[in-house]
């Protein structure tokens, strides 16, 4: 496991060091965001907590039920790579997986780190740039097709922690991979992960981001995807936990024929706040993008979806659609769905639809009148609502496990 050797000290003057300095400067000058900023007006920033909590003790992660047998795996425990639990022995040539701290060994990756989400884009992007100390560097050379998914597990089992993981993922021309990134915690820590995903011409990436934090945890994530000609990205965000959750997803279709399918499912309970902020920018002609976001909100939880489609001048033949729906299970739950379109080309097909509703009482009665119990009928309707999003999970075993998990959770979420 030589490639995994950690190197906590960045090389002076290296790209990493520059990024950190730049991050620190930007964070100092930007300061924390406030509710006065449009994109932060829904977010309860007062719940952020201590951003400076020190790196916690080494954890002893419990991974039962989380592992995918056929996966290439990196496990991060309390912000440190755990080599013993990781397994990247079976990687084919043309695919490299290492700690992000090893980036100096890959000049090409070093060259582009921070390009998609530079520190000046926002305070927390800056903070991550200044402080990240773990995460994955994944590079697939041209034409490499990876069998079996890559599974990144971020486990945290301490109460107080502020963790700043960072991934850089490069799929060169025609490379194909499935990546599952899994965040699990047991206490009220804060995690601020950032990931940059580069897709070369004709590359194909499936990315499942599974936020399964403790109910008291805080999770603010940033993901950027850049797509070159004829490449294809399928990105799915499942947000199951956290008291404060927010994911900013920035997708740029840079060259003709690229296609991005972005979907998300957020389950809110208690007084949790969850938010998907999506921005899709069509920079080139004949690209397509699809957004499918769902939230199911119980108790006094709150869900926000903001989806912006930007079509640049010259991006003719754009096909962009967006659908956001929220299901409210309680009178106290609130959903805000904000579709935003910014279109500067004329030959464009853009559609969007947004609904907020409750469980269909007619459907519920229909199910019950056939003998299905009330709780089960409600859970069935909730799973059906979530189903569209879950469909895109390609790893069957994981999909089944998630569905079973959701059904159990929905059974518990039926009380008003």
């Amino acid at each position, binding site marked *: 496991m030589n490639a995994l050797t950690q190197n906590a000290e960045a090389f002076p003057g290296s790209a990493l060091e520059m990024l950190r300095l730049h991050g620190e400067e930007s964070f100092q000058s930007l300061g924390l965001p406030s509710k006065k900023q449009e994109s932060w007006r829904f977010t309860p920033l007062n719940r952020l907590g201590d951003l400076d909590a020190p790196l916690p003790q080494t954890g002893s992660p419990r991974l039962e039920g989380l592992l995918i047998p056929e996966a290439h795996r990196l496990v991060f425990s309390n912000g440190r790579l755990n080599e013993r639990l990781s397994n990247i022995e079976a990687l084919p040539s043309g695919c490299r997986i290492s700690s992000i701290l090893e980036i100096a060994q890959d000049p090409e990756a070093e060259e582009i780190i921070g390009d998609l989400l530079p520190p000046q884009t926002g305070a927390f992007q800056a903070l991550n740039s200044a402080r990240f100390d773990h995460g994955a560097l994944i590079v697939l050379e041209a034409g490499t097709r990876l069998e079996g998914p890559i599974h990144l597990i971020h486990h945290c089992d301490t109460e107080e922690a502020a963790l700043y993981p960072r991934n850089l993922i490069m799929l060169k021309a025609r490379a194909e991979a499935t990546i599952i990134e899994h965040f699990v915690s047991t206490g009220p820590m804060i995690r601020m992960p950032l990931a940059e995903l580069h897709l070369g011409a004709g590359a194909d990436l499936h990315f499942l981001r599974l936020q399964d934090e403790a109910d008291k945890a805080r999770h603010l994530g940033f993901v950027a995807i850049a797509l070159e000609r004829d490449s294809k990205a399928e990105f799915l965000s499942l947000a199951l936990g956290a008291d404060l959750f927010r994911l900013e997803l920035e997708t740029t279709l840079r060259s003709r024929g690229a296609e991005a399918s972005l979907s998300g499912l957020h389950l809110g309970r208690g007084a949790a706040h969850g938010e998907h902020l999506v921005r899709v920018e069509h920079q080139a002609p004949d690209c397509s993008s699809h957004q499918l976001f769902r939230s199911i909100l119980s108790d006094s939880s709150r869900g926000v979806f903001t989806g912006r489609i930007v079509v640049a001048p010259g991006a003719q033949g754009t096909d962009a659609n967006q659908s956001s729906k929220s299901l409210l299970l309680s009178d106290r739950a609130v959903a805000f769905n904000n579709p935003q379109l910014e279109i500067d080309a004329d030959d464009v097909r853009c559609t969007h639809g947004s609904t907020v509703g409750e469980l269909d009482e007619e*459907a519920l009665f229909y*199910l*019950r009148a*056939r003998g*299905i119990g009330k709780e089960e009928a409600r859970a069935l309707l909730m799973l*059906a609502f979530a189903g569209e999003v879950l469909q895109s999970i390609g790893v069957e075993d994981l999909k089944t496990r998630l569905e079973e998990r959701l059904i159990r959770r929905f059974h518990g979420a039926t009380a008003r």
Partner: protein
Amino acid sequence: MLEIRNLHASIGDTEILKGINLSIGDGEIHAVMGPNGSGKSTLASVLAGKEDYRVTEGEILYQGNNLLDLDAETRAREGLFLAFQYPVEIPGVGNSYFLKAALNAIRKHRGETELDAFDFLQLVKEKMKLVQMDESLLKRAVNEGFSGGEKKRNEIFHMAVLEPRMAILDETDSGLDIDALRIVSDGVNALRSPERSFLVITHYQRLLDHIVPDFVHVLKDGRIVRSGGRELALELEAEGYEDLHDRDGLRVAAGA
């Protein structure tokens, strides 16, 4: 099988059923006819356990027990079935998955073992033939994108699989062309048995040419105003509902 005594039911402050009396014996087919707004569908909904309606007076005995004490799912598990006038579309829930869940809920209630996927498929294939239903409809979401005729056939198909003791058909004939009507009726007739009773609710006589009832009742303004044999249906067809007078329980001569 089913005994309805002086049933009054309201939605909000509006009383819709105003004292229904109806007794259905084992193996009998009763038809309830009546004009729009007479309370036919309300009667079906109250029997099936829809909570929007409030029963203010009277009682319903089903197999000797108080039906109104049971929630909708328990009624279904006890063998009561409602074929909906407007079957509900449920995107995301597979027709086959739904039916299997329903059947197993009923079997469990009866103390029978649940059917596995294989046995279920065998049963379903056999029952689909009964209503000449295309197998592709099994794989689709419940009623989603089904034509009017397919929805009604799907209801009868569900009934065939669930094998109720007491089946209520709420305007199953509405929206069916003559061929579909025949298929649906043949399906119902195939399910007739000495242990199974039917309550067929319809606006039109034509369904009763295919599903021949033992008794016909006329519902008007929330009351049964006439009862008789199947010839009553023919009489109504000829003379319409307008001339019927509101006299609870009495046979009223219909005439100009």
